[in-house]
């Protein structure tokens, strides 16, 4: 599903984002990318949804080489990869329903189809009773659920979650991770970028640890150990 071959990302003049990354993620896998701040976790995530282009190496997503993806092809890629961030990135003036529908609207989906899909997805994330609430009327966990719902409306094969629990308390963080596991159980490949040790250790899934922009370890059913 995801293949990275000797991927480098160097920011001018010579700041290393990631260096020599080799990674192979199977379809339906749940993988955690861990490491301390500044080790290249977020850079790696950005490379996956073409927010950044590699300076060197090859990135293949679902058989599509996106190493030199053209700008006009990026929207097509983004509709195949769901992305979730620590700061939710919800529009404050839109309701939960509208925020979720927004991803479909910009892709030109018919209103009748939107009215069909959005409630289904909001039911999956457990927000079907808060359709008309605004982000400010939601808890942190609920906001992240709304963001996850928005990332799921295109039925992506891959979900990249960059520090999704960074702004949440332990209980809400747990619930979000449970939701990601549930989404993974439907067959979606989940790439979780985090520095939260407890969460990673509780998952008992594959853990890739980055250090100084390089892969320090890659362990099936691993644990996040401090270097």
């Amino acid at each position: 599903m995801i293949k990275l071959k000797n991927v480098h990302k160097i920011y001018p003049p010579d700041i290393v984002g990631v260096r020599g990354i080799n990674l192979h993620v199977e379809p339906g896998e749940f993988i955690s990318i861990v490491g301390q701040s500044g080790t290249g976790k977020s850079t790696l995530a950005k490379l996956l949804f073409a927010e950044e282009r590699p300076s060197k190496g090859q990135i293949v997503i679902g058989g599509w080489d996106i190493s030199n993806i053209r700008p006009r092809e990026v929207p097509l890629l983004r509709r195949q990869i769901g992305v979730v961030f620590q700061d939710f990135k919800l529009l404050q003036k839109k309701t939960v329903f509208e925020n979720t529908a927004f991803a479909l609207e910009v892709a030109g989906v018919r209103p009748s189809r939107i009215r069909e899909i959005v409630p289904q997805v909001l039911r999956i994330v457990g927000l079907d009773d808060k359709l008309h609430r605004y982000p400010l009327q939601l808890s942190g966990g609920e906001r992240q659920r709304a963001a996850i719902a928005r990332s799921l409306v295109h039925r992506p094969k891959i979900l990249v979650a960059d520090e999704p629990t960074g702004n949440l308390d332990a209980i809400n963080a747990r619930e979000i991770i449970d939701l990601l596991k549930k989404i993974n159980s439907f067959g979606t490949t989940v790439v979780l970028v985090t520095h939260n040790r407890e969460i990673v250790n509780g998952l008992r899934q594959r853990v890739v640890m980055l250090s100084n922009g390089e892969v320090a370890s890659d362990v099936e059913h691993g644990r996040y150990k401090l270097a």
Partner: protein
Amino acid sequence: MTLIRIIKFAFQNIARNVWLSVITVSMLVMTLLTVNILLTLNVLANTAVESVEERIDVTVYFKDGTNPDLVAGAQASLIGLSQVRDAVRIAPEEALARFRARHEDDEAILSALDEVGENPFSYSLVVSARDASDFPTILSALENPSFAEFIEQKDFEDYEEVIGSISRVTQSVRWLGAVLAAVFLFISILIVINTVRVAIYIYREEISIMRLVGASSAFIRTPFWLEAVIYSLVATFITAGIAYPVLVSLERYADTFFYPANAGVLDFYLANGLLIFGLEFLILAVVNILSASLAMRRYLKV
């Protein structure tokens, strides 16, 4: 469906920056008004020149007792010239009748005329030129030896100078108007660029999320282009709305000035209004789309 959403986003852009939109449209209206003032001035200047040109004539008085056939020959010879619009022959009787009619209220003149006893008028030709610059040719044609010796007097006013003055003033005002229009257009371009820049700034969060969830570049950019077109359309309608009543009152005033001729400004706009405002809208829309593109190129990274 995508088009409807793009239109919705464009109107949202305008509504969220309502004051900026008002300023932008006002500036565009100023630009269009300047262009239309220039156009009106052009029509008025043309009417003025035509009106003066129509009055250009030279009256050729023949000596007493000149053979009417010779006068007719001179008339035919002059009409044959391409520079001559018309040459009207006035018989002594007609000249006398006109003179009497013109002075019907002046007892002294009429009694003096009666005192003379006979018709003091001779044959005359009123020659009108097509253009003020044709005068030298007409005057030299009157030197024709076959009838020059029968001419007693040539009477004409130097309209060329009047036309020259009108042209000079008109030309200066046209230049000034063109410079003003260019200045307004330049300011309008800057304002449109700034308006789009502010809209991009206000929309930055929404734009980043649009990009994140897979909106195409065209989907993100088109509302800004559409916004520029809407500004142009609104500005054109407002300008037309202001221009019409102004033209009606201007026409009323100008008609008395040009009487008996018609100033022709309103007629000109009624006949060509659609074309004029249509062209103004098209040019403004193209300029604004280019300005918006410039702003997006600079400030919108998609």
